[in-house]
């Protein structure tokens, strides 16, 4: 990252350059072949470990225990059936949904608000704010456990919001903690992106007397679709896979999100690893689906690319 400070970009791009021409290039050239071969090898190398694990999740533990994993045989789908039943996944998937969706929406909303203000206006404390938010991401979350635990335990909630009567053992605590920890990173990414949006965009709106809110909502946000899609993908994955806060702030096993309940497949001593693998594959499916969905969004976000505005 030596050239981080090398800010002066050559600006040879003619503003009225013709539209995208690369599409017309022939797709079959030696260079393309090398490129595809290389990418295929990399992709296979990246997927192989997962494929190997998935393969073994379809094997009977009694078989792999005797013959080792570097063998073939003992095929079964029992692991999946058992994992679903033992892990009580239906219930825990719903729990994950109750936690992840509000937390991601809240995170993206709050961080885009801060990022917008930081990128749009200059205040003395701009930099300090950015530091405050970004640094929050560098803290080891585990070290905040005891103070946060005490804090949540001391905040009462009416029983219709939390049956434990406090923030502890409620989804509220979990949603807020996840939001607080993720807001920093999203703010950082979004404000960086928003700073690249040309100022001129807002000038017209201002002449029209558009309120700050309208500028945020109708100008900035639509232009931020690519980073928002990228962030949404990452955040859903992170918050969905988060299990530390869930296990320390929730105390009822029934409320655990699906990632925490994966532990239900482990015994006190003995663990059927193949069963855990089957459970983890099931748990990974929603994040994969989200990625496929948002990847599309990602690509369509291109046409709204900032520099083309």
């Amino acid at each position, binding site marked *: 990252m030596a050239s981080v400070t090398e800010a002066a970009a050559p600006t040879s791009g003619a503003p009225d350059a013709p539209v995208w021409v690369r599409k017309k290039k022939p797709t079959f050239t030696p260079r393309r072949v090398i490129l595809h071969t290389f990418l295929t090898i990399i992709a296979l190398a990246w997927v192989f470990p997962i494929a190997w694990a998935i393969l073994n999740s379809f094997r009977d533990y*009694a078989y792999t*225990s*005797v013959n080792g994993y570097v063998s073939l045989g003992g095929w079964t789908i029992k692991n999946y059936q*058992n994992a679903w039943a*033992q892990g009580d996944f239906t219930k825990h998937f719903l729990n994950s949904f109750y936690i992840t969706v509000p937390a991601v929406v809240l995170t993206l909303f709050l961080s885009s608000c801060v990022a917008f203000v930081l990128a749009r206006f200059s205040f003395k404390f701009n930099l300090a704010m950015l530091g405050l938010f970004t640094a929050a991401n560098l803290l080891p979350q585990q070290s905040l456990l005891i103070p946060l*635990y005490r804090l949540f*335990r001391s905040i009462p909630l009416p029983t219709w919001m939390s049956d*434990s*009567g*406090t923030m*502890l*053992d409620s989804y509220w605590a979990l949603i807020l903690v996840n939001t607080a920890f993720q807001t920093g990173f999203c703010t950082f990414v979004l404000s960086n992106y928003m700073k690249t949006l040309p100022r001129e965009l807002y000038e017209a709106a201002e002449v029209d007397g558009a309120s700050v809110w309208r500028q945020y909502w109708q100008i900035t946000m639509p232009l931020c679709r690519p980073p928002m899609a990228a962030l949404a993908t990452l955040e859903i994955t992170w918050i969905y896979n988060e299990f530390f806060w869930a*296990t*320390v702030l929730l*105390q*009822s*096993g*029934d409320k*655990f999100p699906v990632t*925490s*309940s994966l*532990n*239900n*497949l*482990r*015994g*006190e*001593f*003995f*663990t059927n*690893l193949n069963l855990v693998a089957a459970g983890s594959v099931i748990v990974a499916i929603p994040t994969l689906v989200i990625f496929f969905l948002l990847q599309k969004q990602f690509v369509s976000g291109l046409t709204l690319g900032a520099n083309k505005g």
Partner: protein
Amino acid sequence: MTRPQSEAEYLARMVPSSVAATSLNRRTLFKGAVGGAAALSIPGLLAACGSTSSGAAASGGSAKGTVTFGSNASDATPKKSFAAQVAAFQTASGNTVKVNTVDHNTFQENINNYLQGNPDDVFTWFAGYRMRFFAAQGLAGDVSDVWPKLSGYTDGFKSASTGDDGKQYLVPYDYYPWALFYRKSVWAAKGYTVPTTLDELTALSKQMQKDGLVPIAFADKDGWPAMGTFDVLNMRVNGYQFHIDLMAGKKAWNGPEVKKVFDAWTGLLPYHQSNALGRTWQEAAQTLQQKKAGMYLLGLFVAQQFTAAEQSDIDFFTFPAIDSTIGSDALDAPIDGMMMRNKPKNEAGAKAFLEYIGSVDAQKIALANDPGNLYPNSGVDTSSYTALQKKASELVGSAKNIAQFLDRDTRPDFASTVMIPQLQAFIKDPTKVNDILDSIESQKKSIFTA
């Protein structure tokens, strides 16, 4: 035992708990249930009568109370076993039990926060320092008045359930001994015999090496299995009392006594499976299962790694004597049990539940549903025990002193942040034992005096 139990379960589903509670005197009902197996059908019958006579009127009545029960039994077998016992208790007592199951590992990691938050009335925990600590901190409730109502527990179990103040805080639920396990078929084929002294063990190990076997399977990737080796060596070299004093922080780790233990261990290490720090106990157990290893020092749970057909091929012996004046009558046999929170919401119900859990009836239901364990109540009919279970229960019964395992007998902060890395360092390089013991002692001081 399955029949009346399933009948009780069946009835439990039939009879709303409120009915059983309002139409019967709970107390006598419960006593009947505790009385013995024969009595179990009586409350069942009464409950059945209740359901036919006043079932319709039940809507207005309320249950005697709800007992909340925090369980760490998340895997299928023990979970089912608890469910059956809870169902039987509900039928018998008219209390409702709300079970909160959290997986074993999470439950254990969060115990401090759990007990200070909003814990359940009754919760699963362990005997030993781990129990006494929470009792001393005022986070556990005194259950001394439950104990007179329990029958079939030896004094050993009672003292293991007793806190520093002399009161009882635990009702034992199950336990398992640590020993050297082996496969009968392998030993029969090679003509090995059980060693009773350290020299015999060494000679046997040498023979096994000649026969192409790993003498002693070994794994310590997760840090705790090596504690079992240390415990038993220390009890053989220095005796039970020294071991307990050492665990309590009263003896020096870099003194001559502990050094002797590590000397003995160093002598045995060449016969242990190498590369232990990258191996899980399950992988080590597989080498035993696959007949590549001759013995394995572990808890009875090692049997879970074997298939049903192989169960009858497993046998074990207690670690042989090292010092003949000390003998070999002490061992690790950790006890799991149930405790009551401090000031439970439903104290009478919680105590009734604990009393039930310690009863012969409950233990029989547990044995029927989860046969892999040993159950402490001597009233349990051991005829359904496997040969392995019988032998294990005899071993523990004949032991003069029972330790709970290093991480249950000493401060958990010391066990996990000092002992695990230092024992691993020793296994990595036994020649550094003096530095390691000095480091343990110095860290121990900083923790125990804090």
